[in-house]
């Protein structure tokens, strides 16, 4: 099967298509930004063009006719944009955004097993109709290509330009920029680095219109390039910027002038391409060296060269891997870890046997080596799974743009910490909850423009998302500068829904009141708007996050805004756990939430406001008995001495009361399967050595149920 070309292409299609679509969407955001700021971005339009261009060919190759057709028309539109035949207006960008979303949907369908893109027929038909409209309008608005000014280009240069490059050349002439030819020779081994360095220097100065390679030196170890550059600044500036690179800069000759650096605005020129009889073609013929008399040196900056060679190499040596393959590797490591646990068991037995002490020592040594290597392997696999949160943030920017339009609100979306890394699976799972959080900010948090103006706030609301890593956790804050949460409405809503009675409501702290927002059905809004009606409640957000071992907290300041703080472990794959026993059962507690453990006597427990607490270095620590949390029946009396495992998430602390600490172990959490999924307080199951399966406690839920206004307590 898999050696049929079409199958091989299909295997590669999806990841590449998704990558292209993401790039395309990211470019659109930047283009939109630049459009709003009034900056022209020809390079970026061209990149967007190239991305749909590739997508078109891909989709065509694997038989996705709709996607191919749609990308074909989008390509046409962008082609006209990059050739300045169509202006990149807000409407055009909207069309492009819609197409980007549709592409994404089609790719997602294919990813979920759809064999064609027929499911998007209606949406793509509608979009196509509007695209045709935009293209038709564009065709009538065609304008003449600007002429060459007084510049003299030899025919051999012009013949090698693509239509787009030729257009950029003309546009640079039209804008009155100076045109230069930068001649550089690179050693084959260092061309990547050398060219990168050259591009970096040129970037702030102007636009590289084309790269012309030539092999005229005849040295197979060298590549010579002529870059045609359009730049507004004086020649001296460019000369200075290129100093030390060993390249030769010349102004492109103009009719009736010397090649000196004058930059007077071009006089009205004769139209059309001029021949250049007085100057030999600078690139293509052997006569050229006479015009470029300076010995062309290879980059002299050897140190820089070598340093960057490595980085460029690694960039080009990436492979794309299906996340399931990583999961499989992770499972294998998990099973190896279990095997190691088994070996440890054998070792423990061996140690007792004095006659085999030597063997035990050897095995002990080998087991330690194995353990270390397994740890390294785990760390390495986890590292591979890590991706920057920026991937999600980019998607969110698009959502913000869309929602703010629908809501008629002007939103400034501020992102920070996009480079923070998280397990790929977590990143995927995060996008929905984050989207709902942001929806809520825009819909409920940010006031309508008139109201903001009256309150003396900037008319544009700000929604900020910031990520940072703290130890084994990543903290994501979503913050708006809107109206803040209405305590009275929240309490009323919670009372109406029967979560609280009036009396209990009066005793709630401000934080507890704000956290009411995470209860099903509780809201600050009287009527559901389109957004909240379509969206999901914060309770669902919270549930989804706790499935990821995440915890969410809310703070608010009336009139100033609301902040949601989300704390997540960086990976869920393999965790270290503390194995404990309570009421005759064994559990595992994820070690990343364990702060310490203490031994207490039964007399140490006090009761404050119906809650059991112990004193921990002068602080009051609320405790929860594991047997109570899971309603376990205990055989016999409680022991006089118990252990308290202090667990914490973010700033919250709770003591879990247990009977026995057994030890630490690496565990792979396995889901409990559908029937047992969603038991509060249980994150999953794991196998300890000797085929023993134990439950893994979900610390986030236990902490919240003990401290917060979780469902259990609110109902009492």
């Amino acid at each position, binding site marked *: 099967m898999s050696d049929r070309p079409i199958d091989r*292409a299909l295997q590669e299609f999806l990841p590449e298509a998704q990558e292209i679509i993401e790039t395309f969407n990211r470019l659109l955001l930047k283009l939109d930004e630049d459009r709003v700021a009034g900056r022209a971005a020809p390079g970026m339009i061209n990149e967007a063009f190239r991305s749909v261009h590739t997508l078109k060919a891909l989709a065509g190759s694997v038989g996705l006719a709709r996607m191919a057709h749609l990308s074909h028309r989008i390509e046409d539109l962008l082609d006209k944009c990059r050739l300045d035949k169509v202006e990149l207006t807000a409407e055009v960008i909207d069309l492009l955004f819609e197409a980007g979303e549709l592409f994404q949907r089609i790719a997602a369908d294919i990813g979920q097993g759809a064999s064609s893109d027929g499911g998007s027929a209606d949406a793509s038909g509608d979009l196509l109709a509007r695209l045709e409209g935009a293209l038709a309008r564009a065709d009538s608005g065609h304008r003449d290509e600007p002429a060459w000014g007084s510049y003299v280009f030899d025919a051999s240069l012009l013949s090698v330009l*693509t239509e787009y490059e030729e257009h950029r050349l003309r546009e640079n002439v039209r804008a009155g920029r100076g045109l230069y030819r930068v001649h550089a020779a690179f050693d084959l081994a260092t061309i990547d680095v050398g060219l990168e360095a050259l591009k970096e220097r040129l970037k702030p100065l102007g636009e590289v219109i084309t790269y012309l*390679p030539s092999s005229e030196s005849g040295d197979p170890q060298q*590549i010579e390039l002529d870059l045609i550059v359009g730049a507004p600044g004086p020649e001296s500036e460019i000369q200075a910027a290129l100093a030390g690179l060993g390249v030769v800069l010349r102004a492109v000759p103009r009719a009736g002038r010397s090649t000196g650096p004058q930059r007077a605005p071009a006089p009205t020129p004769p139209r059309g391409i001029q021949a250049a009889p007085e100057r030999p073609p600078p690139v293509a013929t052997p006569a050229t060296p006479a015009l470029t008399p300076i010995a062309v040196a290879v980059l002299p900056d050897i140190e820089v060269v070598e340093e960057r060679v490595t980085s460029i190499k690694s960039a080009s040596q990436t492979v794309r891997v299906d996340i399931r393959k990583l999961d499989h590797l992770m499972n294998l490591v998990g099973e190896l870890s279990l095997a190691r646990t088994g070996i440890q068991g054998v070792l423990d037995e061996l140690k007792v046997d004095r006659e085999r002490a030597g063997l035990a020592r050897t095995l002990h040594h080998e087991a330690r080596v194995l353990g270390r290597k397994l740890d390294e392997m785990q760390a390495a696999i986890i590292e591979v799974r890590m991706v920057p949160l920026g991937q999600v943030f980019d998607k969110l920017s698009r959502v913000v743009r869309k929602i703010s339009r629908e809501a008629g609100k002007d939103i400034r979306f501020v992102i920070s910490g996009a480079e923070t890394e998280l397990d790929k699976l977590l990143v995927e799972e995060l996008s929905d909850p984050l989207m709902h959080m942001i929806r809520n900010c825009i819909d409920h948090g940010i006031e309508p423009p008139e109201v903001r103006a009256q309150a003396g706030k900037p008319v544009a609301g700000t929604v900020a998302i910031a990520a940072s890593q703290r130890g084994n956790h990543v903290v994501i804050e979503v913050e708006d500068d809107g109206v803040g949460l209405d305590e009275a409405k929240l309490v009323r809503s919670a009372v109406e829904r029967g979560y609280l009675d009036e009396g209990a409501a009066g005793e709630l702290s401000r934080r507890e009141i704000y956290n009411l927002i995470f209860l099903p059905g509780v809201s600050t809004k009287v009527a559901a708007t389109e957004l909240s009606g379509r969206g999901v409640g914060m309770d669902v957000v919270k549930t989804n996050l706790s499935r990821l071992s995440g915890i969410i907290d809310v703070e608010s300041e009336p009139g100033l805004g609301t902040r949601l703080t989300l704390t997540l472990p960086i990976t869920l794959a393999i965790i270290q756990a503390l194995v404990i026993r309570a009421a005759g059962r064994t559990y595992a507690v994820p070690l990343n939430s364990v702060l310490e453990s203490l031994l207490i006597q039964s007399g140490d427990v006090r009761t404050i406001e119906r809650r059991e607490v112990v004193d921990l270095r002068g602080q009051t620590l609320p405790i929860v008995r594991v047997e109570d949390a899971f309603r376990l029946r205990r055989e016999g009396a409680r022991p006089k001495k118990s252990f308290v495992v202090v667990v914490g998430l973010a700033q919250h602390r709770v003591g879990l009361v247990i009977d026995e600490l057994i030890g630490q172990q690496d565990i792979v959490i396995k889901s409990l399967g559908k029937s047992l999924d969603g038991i509060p307080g249980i994150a999953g199951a794991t196998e300890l050595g000797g085929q023993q399966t134990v439950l893994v406690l979900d610390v986030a839920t236990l902490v919240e149920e003990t401290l917060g206004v979780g469902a259990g307590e609110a109902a009492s």
Partner: protein
Amino acid sequence: MGEPKRVLLVEDSPTMRAFAVAALEAEGFAVTTAGSGFEALKILPRSRFDVIITDINMPDITGLELIRFVRESAVHSKVPLVIISTDGAERDRERGLKLGADAYLVKPFAPEALVEVVRRALSPAA
């Protein structure tokens, strides 16, 4: 047949590359790939190819620039050159043919079509 014919394939889309490589290798060609015009520039002086297939729309060094480079090079000035480009790029394709490319193929294409075009470029008499 003797030695397998050596093909240089210059194409920046990994999927299109995989597609073309599969089609050509199934027919016994020895395929070397380059993911950009630059990569091709680096490979060309050090190797000999019997046929070169190139995309046009690539960043920095375009297919057109590559075609001229090839035609001016000592080793490959006569080597058969095939353009693969999508429709809509007729003008660029025309230029490519003027610069010395021998044939073109419009993407997306059937594997047989690619093999056919490459075979014909290799033995124009047939």
